[in-house]
């Protein structure tokens, strides 16, 4: 005996499955947002950071590559041309009027021109940039060692983080900013980079100055840096999570 196919029943079953699936997915999303899960995620981030710091010493260096490994074009991500009028004016004049302000919890607040930074102890390194999306790109960076800049202004004892304020508002929204703790800020490969692959940093990659923190993901490495602020807490900035992407759900610890 053969059973006639019953399209009504099949449709009912399919719909039931789809609805069930949708409900389950919605349930997962609600779970993602619940306080209990948020606490678990925060705990997991804490363990990840501690484990990383247990295994990677203060000085442990990111891999440096050979000139042959440099990518033909360094991929630009996020903002590639800030539209802000102030920035455009600075760019029109080849950043001659640009100054890096360093203030907050420092002994001697100062402003540095590009020439000032180029005259400071520099480092050149060929490193791999890892985006949180999953891709990697190798480039050669030259810049002032951040630790030297911090020594010049004198970091006060209460300071715990360096905040990097950028000129751009990503997609015209809120200002871009990022933060590192002092351990990462004083790492020998952490640079305020002004050259990429032996030439002036292009605007797409953050001219005139971008952060390089080679043991972190790309979103940490603020481009179009205008100001460094030393703080004991970043609760008063943005939405209080220590960075533009952190304010949008990405974790502050971006070493993974």
């Amino acid at each position, binding site marked *: 005996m053969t059973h006639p196919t019953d399209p009504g029943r099949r449709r009912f079953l399919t719909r039931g499955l789809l609805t069930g*699936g949708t409900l389950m*997915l*919605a349930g*997962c*999303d609600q779970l*993602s947002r619940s306080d209990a899960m948020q606490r*678990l*995620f925060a705990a*997991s*981030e804490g*363990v*990840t950071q501690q484990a*990383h710091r247990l*295994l*990677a*010493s203060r000085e*442990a*260096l*990111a*891999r440096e*590559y050979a000139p042959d*490994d440099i*990518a033909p074009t360094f*991929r630009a991500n996020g903002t590639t041309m800030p539209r802000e009028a102030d920035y455009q004016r600075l760019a029109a004049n080849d950043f001659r009027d640009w100054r890096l302000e360093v203030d907050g919890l420092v002994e001697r607040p100062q402003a540095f021109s590009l020439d000032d930074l180029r005259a400071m102890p520099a480092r050149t390194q060929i490193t*791999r940039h*890892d*985006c*949180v*999306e*999953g*891709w*990697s*790109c*190798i480039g050669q960076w030259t810049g002032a060692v951040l630790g030297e800049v911090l020594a010049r202004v004198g970091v006060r004892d209460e300071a715990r983080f360096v905040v990097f304020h950028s000129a751009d508002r990503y997609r015209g929204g809120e200002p871009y900013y990022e933060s590192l703790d002092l351990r990462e800020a004083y790492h020998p490969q952490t640079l305020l980079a002004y050259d990429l692959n032996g030439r002036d940093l292009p605007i797409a990659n953050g001219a005139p100055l971008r952060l390089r923190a*080679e*043991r*972190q*993901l790309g979103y940490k490495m603020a481009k179009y840096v205008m100001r460094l602020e030393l703080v004991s807490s970043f609760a008063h900035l943005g939405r209080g999570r220590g960075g533009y*992407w952190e304010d*949008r*759900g*990405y*974790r502050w610890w971006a*070493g*993974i």
Partner: protein
Amino acid sequence: MRLLDDTRKAPRPTVIKRHSAFTRLWHWINVVCLAILLMSGLQIFNAHPALYWGKDSTFEAPALSIGAERDEDGSLRGITRIGDLRVDTTGVLGVSGPSTDRERRAFPAWATLPGPRWLAMGRQWHFLAGWVFAPLLAAYLLYLVASGQLRRRLLPRRREWRQVGTTVTDHLRLRFPRGEEARHYNLLQKLAYLVVLFVVAPLVVLTGLTMSPTMDAAWPWLLDLFGGRQSARTLHFLAAAALLAFFVVHILLVLVSGLGNNLRSMITGRYALPPDHALPTKKETRDDASH
């Protein structure tokens, strides 16, 4: 009378203790962890749906990519590329969702955690589940070695290698060991568990760690071991696919070799040896007679 009746029935099967409490607990935690890891992993993959070999991303020549294109009549087509091969995967890969509301995304919403595009949340699920999976895996492997179970239950014996042909054909015909033979894993089971436990699972953990820039500073040998971060990412994806393949075969074999008995052995630990005296087929009778 009852006594007589009982003797006429089949004898009660021998019940053995098959899985320790640790094994059973570990197994069910893994079910949850691996589901979360796989689905959140696909969410993370969707943020950059391409794989590469080497140190960094050769954007023009990915080893695999999943994308979307518009064809002549303007409809979206999901296109999966593996090397030079191009496959239209509309509906599942590249373009998916209800036909009225097609969405460009590598893996479909039903396969990712969370469902909508949400990389930040996918990462949080992935790392949280990873923190449960990886330490427990290490503990379980140590337990297998230290308790002697690795040697006693998983390492193949010379005799088994000699019978490899029979074991394979029996498996393909879905004829599973019965009676005393069912006390032990057969060669194929042993090899599958050994490869998954000691090769694929450690590979998936280590290639995952290689994607962390801080881990690369801590353990630079990871980059050399896997041929660079992007190679590690590709291997991570392949190892996850291997785990998924294992899962599918595992479920199928559990279903066809006695769902209830298998399930019970993974819940209570008790496994009834399938009775030895199943009705012999004609061929078996003839074989027996010829001995």
